[in-house]
């Protein structure tokens, strides 16, 4: 193309070309790169399966999650019960499917809560600076100093058991991570030439933050959210294992199911195996996807 022609007139005179098009944005560009990344694709498949199963659990599951059958307790996997049955004769396959629903629901809502709270704190701290920054960052430092699972246990102990409490407890442990991440990005972006240039044309502080800094600080947040979703799923199972999960002990929550099955590790290992496998697959899926996203979204790999 004749783009580096020195004469202004030569190009200016050229009529509008047919190639005038709305070009592919960074997002669709990143997505096509993601699909070419083998591990990320595996992660994407795991996650798609996980989400699909969670949404379609009532359709796919051959039995209800609470449905008990006398007689068929701790059965080994068979055609009728793909993952066998548990102590109360409930179909493990159905329970694992419904468990995906709970993990996904609690995990996604918890991470979104953390993202919003942390994002707000980070944007305020980075955008305003000064004493607001100092106060907010010291608060997040305190939160960060307490081990995550301990903090979650404390919050549940304080607020009592319940689904909402579970989400909140997990969310709070990840707030500081998002807050620091966004604050760091904003501090770096504040010095970048294009933000300074936008300031030079007279854009207000709010506009700089919303239009220039936040969109460019978004990708590390998305990557981090995906990776944290993996740990959140493990956290949910961990809290369930500790007896701090959903208040109803019958709930098909993976951690609760694990703790129930633990006693029969020798006689009926398949229960632990399938439940554990479900946790591992979903956690690894989010991890692989997160790493893949990092690679395909990283602006440093592409200018």
């Amino acid at each position, binding site marked *: 193309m004749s783009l580096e*022609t020195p004469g*202004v007139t030569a190009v*200016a005179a050229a009529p509008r070309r047919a190639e005038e098009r709305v070009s592919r944005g960074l997002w669709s560009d990143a997505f096509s790169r993601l699909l070419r990344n083998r591990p990320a694709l595996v992660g994407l498949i795991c996650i798609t399966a996980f989400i699909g199963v969670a949404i379609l659990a009532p359709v796919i599951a051959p039995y209800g999650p609470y449905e008990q059958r006398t007689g068929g307790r701790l059965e080994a996997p068979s055609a009728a019960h793909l993952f066998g049955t548990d102590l109360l004769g409930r179909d493990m396959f159905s329970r694992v499917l419904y468990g995906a629903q709970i993990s996904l629901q609690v995990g996604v809502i918890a991470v979104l809560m953390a993202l919003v709270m942390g994002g707000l704190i980070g944007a305020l701290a980075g955008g305003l600076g000064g004493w607001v920054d100092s106060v907010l960052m010291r608060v997040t430092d305190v939160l960060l100093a307490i081990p995550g699972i301990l903090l979650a246990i404390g919050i549940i102990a304080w607020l009592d058991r319940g689904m909402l409490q579970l989400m909140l407890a997990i969310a709070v442990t990840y707030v500081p991570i998002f807050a620091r991440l966004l604050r760091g990005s904003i501090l770096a972006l504040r010095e970048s*030439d294009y933000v*300074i240039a936008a300031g030079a*044309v007279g854009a207000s502080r709010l506009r700089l933050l919303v239009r220039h800094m936040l969109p460019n600080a978004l990708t590390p947040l998305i990557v981090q959210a995906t990776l944290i979703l993996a740990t959140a799923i493990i956290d949910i199972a961990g809290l369930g294992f500790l007896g701090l999960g959903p208040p109803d002990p019958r709930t098909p929550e993976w951690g609760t199911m694990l703790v129930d099955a633990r006693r029969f590790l020798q006689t009926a290992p398949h229960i632990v195996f399938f439940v554990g496998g479900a946790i591992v697959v979903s956690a690894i899926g989010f991890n692989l996807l997160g790493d893949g996203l990092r690679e395909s979204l990283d602006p440093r790999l*592409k200018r």
Partner: protein
Amino acid sequence: MEGTVSEGLPVGGTGDGQLPSGDELIGVESLVKHFEIRGGLLGVRRIGAVRAVDGVSFSVRRGETLGLVGESGCGKTTLGKVILRLIPATSGQVRVKGRPIFGLNDREMIPIRRDMQIVFQDPYGSLNPRMTVGEIVGEGPYVHGLRSRQEREELVRELLARVGLNQSHIHRYPHEFSGGQRQRIGIARALALNPEFVVCDEPVSALDVSIQSQVLNLLDDLQQDLGLTYLFIAHNLAVVEHISDRVGVMYLGKLVELAPVDPLYQQPAHPYTVALLSAVPETDPRKRKKRIVLKGDVPSPAAPPPGCRFHTRCWLRERLGNPERCATDEPALREVRPGQMAACHYAEEVSPAAIEAASRASESGMTAELAAG
């Protein structure tokens, strides 16, 4: 403007150092920018300051190009950004068309932003990767009240054509362009508000040599067509000579010489300018180069030497037998010859003979060093 810049013709000795304030567009008065170094347990104790710009005064005349040269880290980029109030100054004042701008609040600054714009060095870092060319170039007009999408797009297309870009590129993203094209987008953004004054912060130093001249010519054409005034920051002396009417030389946050381009290049008054010019490579291999190699490194701007900042490395001071005055008295910028200002107590001692002798001494010193090493 007195001379056409494109031909690189001399402006002549008409310019005088102290300007009649009538044709002053931008006035810079004892501008200081210190970056504080904080330390201590809570990070609030002030343990020092990097004196990036340390008391600089000059004016930019309407329609001229004032070149600003100096080594990396001498504070020239900081100076440009402080003048535009993109980073806050520590002290001093900047006048735009006679109106002091430090002390104005954000709202009062908005109309002033229309008059002064900036073109950045790095064509990759200066465009928001998440915005299309149309959004980037059209942002200024939008902020300043041009809300109609259609009018804005028309304006952007005009600007793109003006800077030599294809109008159909309006909906593309920065990553789809080359460095030279991106720099043109940056120039279009700067022009969108129809400014009078543009700070060009090393606008070509990140570009391929073949593209450099194109962008320089573009800047030149735009200046003539639109009557722009440039503060042209660069470290490439040849580029500055080509484009400037007057040139300021900076060393460690201070302006050490300010003169019309021809006197400065042919008869520099400050020993630092002499050394700087002697470092320009000679294209004619038959010409013997009088090279003065400065000893040592640039002192840290966090702890600049007392007196004249250049005295620790000054070849002239060495020739004069290290006068005490250089290390104690800070020289002010004064008129050495009509129109030529320099900040050196002994600027009158800078003569072709002295330069010749210093370069010979410098060369023999180097050979001795080579033999020893």
